[in-house]
């Protein structure tokens, strides 16, 4: 909690999410909490990486931020406006500069439309410029992402590869010149060789347009180079947020350490073993989440307290927040604190 409050004071905050809760009704009148009480902030021009296993609620979080799913409670303040209180026209206006690209590049593009029209749509919706200006700008943006509009602008999405489709989605998202771009696992569906190209493109465009990015991925390797700060999510809650450098060097949450261990390294012997202990088992059902610290069922260091008390995010080093009763400090993690 305290973390978010501090961030919100900062003048260059572009997005601040506070105590966000998102529930879905499921069968028999039950409700599942996809996101339960998440708080964080993103600064101007910053890239925040958000990492967690499939099913931990990170995509739901992204959609709750942009109000595709209306949050059950909590606030999402984008450029000083609380999006959760807005409806209709106000919301349309407020999230104009908040765009998103999705995991499935094929499904992100209407199969019936030509590429140039897809990219032009945002301008048409907002009535920006004359038709010829709209087309010019669309061609220009497509060029920026490496698609030749003259050659392939009149093709339809199925005639492109996944990577190319993702580029087209990016071009489309950029048309309204967003200040924050949320990327929901934008490279997970792509071949490894293409992943790097799309990542570089995003980096490049981010710098050129001065946007902030919320970059979601399911493993720490992908976000490592692109992120200024990284947040780790588990079963609808944040476990740890820190600067990229600090998180990779001194992970404090056992879950973060587990995720780091999952990254293949060129020389496995160089890795500090987790004292022989490993994260085990499967992600528990979000329908019936564990009590206390949600990670305790899989945590190699779990203590009795972990199953009764819920740990709050607290600052263990400047800018390094962790939600763990027994954070690993220096002892278990690599290197010295």
């Amino acid at each position, binding site marked *: 909690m305290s973390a978010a409050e501090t961030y919100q004071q900062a003048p260059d905050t572009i997005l601040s999410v506070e105590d966000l809760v998102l529930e879905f009704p499921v069968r028999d009148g039950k409700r599942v909490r996809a996101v339960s009480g998440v708080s964080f902030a993103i600064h101007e021009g910053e890239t925040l990486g958000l990492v967690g296993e499939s099913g931990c609620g990170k995509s739901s979080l992204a959609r709750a931020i942009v109000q595709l799913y209306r949050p059950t409670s909590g606030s999402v303040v984008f450029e000083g406006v609380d999006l959760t209180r807005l409806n209709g026209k106000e919301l349309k206006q407020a*999230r104009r500069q908040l765009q998103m690209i999705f995991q499935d590049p094929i*499904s992100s593009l*209407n199969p019936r439309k030509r590429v140039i029209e897809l990219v032009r*749509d945002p301008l048409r919706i907002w009535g920006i410029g004359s038709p010829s200006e709209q087309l010019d700008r669309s061609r220009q943006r497509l060029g920026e992402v490496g698609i030749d509009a003259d050659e392939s602008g009149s093709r339809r999405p199925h005639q492109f590869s996944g990577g190319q489709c993702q580029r087209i989605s990016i071009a*489309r998202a950029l048309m309204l010149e967003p200040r924050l771009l949320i990327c929901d696992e934008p490279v997970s569906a792509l071949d490894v060789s293409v992943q790097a190209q799309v990542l570089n493109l995003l980096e490049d465009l981010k710098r050129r347009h001065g946007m902030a990015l919320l970059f979601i991925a399911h493993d720490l390797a992908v976000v490592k180079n692109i992120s200024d700060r990284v947040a780790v999510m588990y079963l609808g809650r944040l476990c740890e947020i820190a600067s990229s450098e600090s998180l990779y060097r001194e992970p404090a949450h056992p879950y973060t350490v587990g995720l780091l261990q999952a990254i293949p390294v060129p020389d496995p012997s160089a890795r500090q073993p987790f004292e022989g202990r490993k994260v085990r088992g499967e992600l528990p059902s979000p329908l019936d989440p564990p009590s206390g610290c949600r990670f305790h069922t899989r945590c190699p260091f779990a203590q009795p307290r972990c199953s009764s008390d819920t740990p709050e995010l607290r600052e263990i080093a400047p800018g390094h927040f962790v939600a763990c009763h027994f954070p690993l400090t220096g002892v278990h993690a690599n290197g010295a604190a």
Partner: protein
Amino acid sequence: MSEISLAPTPPALPTEIPVRGRAALTRRQRRRRPSVLIIIAAVWIGAWAILAVIANWIPLANPSHHVGHSRVGPFHSWSHPLGTDALGRDELSRLIFGARQSLAVSVIAAAIAMSVGAIVGLLSAYIRNFMDVAVGTFTDAILAFPPLVFLLAVAATIGPSSTTVTGGLAIVSMPAFIRLSRANALRFVNREFVQANRLMGAGPLRIVFKEILPNILAPIAAYAVVLMAFLIVAASSLSYLGLGVPPPAPSWGAMIADGQPDLVQHPGLVFVPAVVLFITVYALNVLGDAARQRFDVRESAL
């Protein structure tokens, strides 16, 4: 099993067929009709459509007026190649103007049912909640009548006329379009491109009509072709019962009913329109199957 069109029931909805059966069928095993048959069917339907459209401009006898001796058999006279009926009216002319009647009724009914059904199904899929319940109750209520009984009820209420028949046919055909459109639209309403459009600021109307509708048109249009056979049969059945387009306007069903008392002495009066009606329905079924396979209606409806 793609050829389910029991007259007079609107063809079974593809959504009602479990996946299991189809999934195991490979393309090769699916019955494929020789394309020659499809071409012949298309030519036959096309020819009647053209005749129906230009009927006013070709030198035909007035179909409602007595033009000569009654019950002249077919191929007896050059001026009346298909003979005359019990009232001495020209059979060929009645056949062509009857085609005009049947085709107009069926095409207009299909167009109404398709456009209204597609939009209602689409909105039902996009809005869900109360809309879904309302639409579901409406379709259930219509489907509570066997289609022909519903048409009879309509004819009884408002009195037989081409408007009643067209309207009635449009209404009985609507539930199938609503379900087809809803089932197809449901596959798209949560797609990422729809979400992306909402973020870009697109309103519900734009999303429904410009993003989703173009994606569900093909299977809906294919079903409309399948439906045509049912509509022709239903319209002629009503005419046969004397509850279709009222006389003296010619219609195939009424021609057959009129000829029935003379069946023994003058079978041609029944069999000429009967054969034309049969071939037309057969041809429409062939085209409907082809359309359904081409756009794989079933696949997209699931």
